[in-house]
């Protein structure tokens, strides 16, 4: 079998799998739509491979086969994601309210009927929420994975707000707002530590201007900028989650991450810095973090990285610090332009009172109020101990109650819709 034959066969097998998945039952059409897009993409790839033959240059055939293989590595996990998005362990009650929020943030200028954002929410087998961000061939799709043991826990919905941030980061071109500032900060940082940079890289640059003129130095600058941009993206996503969900984001963040694993990777801000940035933004937005919130989190070290990596990470950290105010302003202006308000304390109290009675609240205005009320009830101490069927089951009952509240909210939104 030639390289071309096996390449075509692999793509056909992938397409067969797509067709098998398309026969499943889908609670929402968005997952099915994603399959349709992937099918069209791989049919194009197969078509291009089928147009090649033994007369084509072998290197040309090999590269196209290599790209097709690369695509299989990229897209097969997405097929698994689509499959798991249909699993009944997902909290389907969350789907429509969160999709409504996502479309509001991503397409605020479009009328409801013209909004095209599609959402895939899936329970995943990794203990960290994640997203597949702006996959070039799946434009308009937001894919969010929640760890399986928590995928039916509506109190962690704010973390999906962070993951939505990754899509917003690209869609709103937030990177363009900070890249120049970050690059300047990196060049300033490297200029200040020019001798150290020369020692690590052994480039023997004679003057700081060579940092941008010398291609080898430029490659190093690129690496640091990539780390800084990724750190900026994570920080922006934290800020967007905070903006969308208020204090509930801080509670959910601490629930999942505190005290931290102790290890840091350089393209993430350290946990200490992340929390510091969150607390700083919370103060700017008149939100109230829990008392001693920062103390919930431990410090992290760059284990397994070289001294030069630590040096580069410190420069990337500086670049993030330089643009942090821009990220705060961006997350605020994006949510304001979308008409998404911060949680309202009076509503949080009203909804919390209803939940404490064991019933969902009517006439809610946004999911942030509901989720903040749920956290308030969580912190309210002993509840329902005098009700035999609910005694000792506070967390379990509350989760069900919040999911029911989200259903009521969605129903009311649908009824209100013209």
């Amino acid at each position, binding site marked *: 079998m030639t390289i071309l034959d096996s390449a075509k066969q692999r793509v056909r097998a992938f397409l067969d799998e797509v067709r098998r998945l398309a026969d499943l039952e889908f609670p929402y059409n968005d997952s099915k739509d994603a399959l349709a897009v992937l099918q069209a993409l791989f049919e*194009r790839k197969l078509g291009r491979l089928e147009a090649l033959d033994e007369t084509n240059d072998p290197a*040309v055939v090999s590269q196209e086969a290599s790209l097709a293989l690369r695509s299989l590595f990229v897209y097969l996990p997405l097929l698994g994601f689509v499959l798991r998005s249909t699993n009944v362990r997902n909290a389907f009650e969350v789907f429509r309210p969160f999709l409504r929020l996502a479309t509001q943030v991503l397409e605020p200028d479009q009328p409801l009927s013209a909004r095209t954002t599609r959402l895939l929410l899936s329970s995943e087998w990794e203990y960290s929420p994640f997203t597949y961000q702006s996959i070039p061939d799946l434009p308009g799709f937001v894919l969010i994975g929640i760890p399986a043991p928590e995928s039916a826990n509506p109190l962690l919905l704010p973390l999906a707000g962070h993951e939505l941030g990754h899509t917003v980061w690209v869609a709103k071109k937030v990177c363009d707002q900070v890249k120049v500032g970050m690059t300047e900060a990196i060049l300033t940082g490297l200029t200040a530590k020019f001798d150290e940079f020369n020692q690590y890289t052994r480039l023997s640059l004679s003057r700081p201007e060579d940092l941008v003129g010398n291609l080898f130095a430029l490659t190093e600058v690129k690496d640091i900028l990539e780390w800084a941009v990724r750190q900026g993206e994570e920080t922006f996503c934290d800020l967007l989650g905070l903006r969308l969900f208020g204090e509930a984001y801080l509670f959910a963040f601490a629930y999942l991450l505190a005290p931290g694993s102790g290890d840091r990777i350089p393209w993430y801000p350290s946990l200490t810095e992340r929390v510091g940035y969150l607390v700083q933004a919370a103060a700017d937005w008149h939100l109230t973090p829990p008392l001693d919130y920062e103390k919930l989190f431990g410090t992290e070290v760059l284990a397994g990285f070289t001294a030069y990596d630590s040096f580069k990470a410190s420069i990337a950290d500086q670049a993030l610090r330089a643009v942090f105010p821009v990220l705060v302003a961006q997350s605020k202006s994006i949510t304001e332009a979308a008409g998404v308000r911060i949680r309202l304390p009076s509503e949080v109290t009203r909804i919390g009172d209803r939940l404490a009675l064991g019933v969902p609240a009517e006439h809610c205005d946004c999911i942030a109020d509901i989720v903040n009320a749920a956290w308030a009830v969580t912190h309210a101490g002993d509840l329902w101990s005098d009700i035999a069927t609910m005694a000792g089951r506070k967390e379990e009952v509350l989760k069900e109650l919040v999911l029911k509240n989200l259903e009521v909210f969605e129903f009311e939104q649908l009824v209100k819709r013209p």
Partner: protein
Amino acid sequence: MTVSPTQSHNVLELDSDLASLASQAAIELDNVLLERAGGLSAVGRLAQMIYATVPAEETSWQIHYLDIGNTIAVNRAVATLTGSSTGTQLRQLLERARDIAARLSALPEHEERHVELKDLRAFCLELSRQAASSRRIANETASHPYRR
């Protein structure tokens, strides 16, 4: 599903990332060498993408707006084409990249200079390889390219 399995698709529709576009450009050039019918739309689009990567005017601010990843991929592909190092200065690279983009965009559909076609095909292939391998963030080894 909005697209049925039997529905036809334009198999020559271009992908938009640099690695795929450069590979499709290499296929088009190969087809010209084989005297097969077909256009040079990917070649034209690739030339535009390279022009976009290397700014037309050099200013002291260009570093801030440069797509450094794509620039470095172009640099490595140029080195393959010329068979030697492109030098160490960004200014030299930008000149050579603009030159390559001009050669790609000036190519007629029935180009008969086989040496030129083969050179540009080799460039496109190398650019595709370099762009594909530079997608990963520095030091990140295990993660999915679009996963955050």
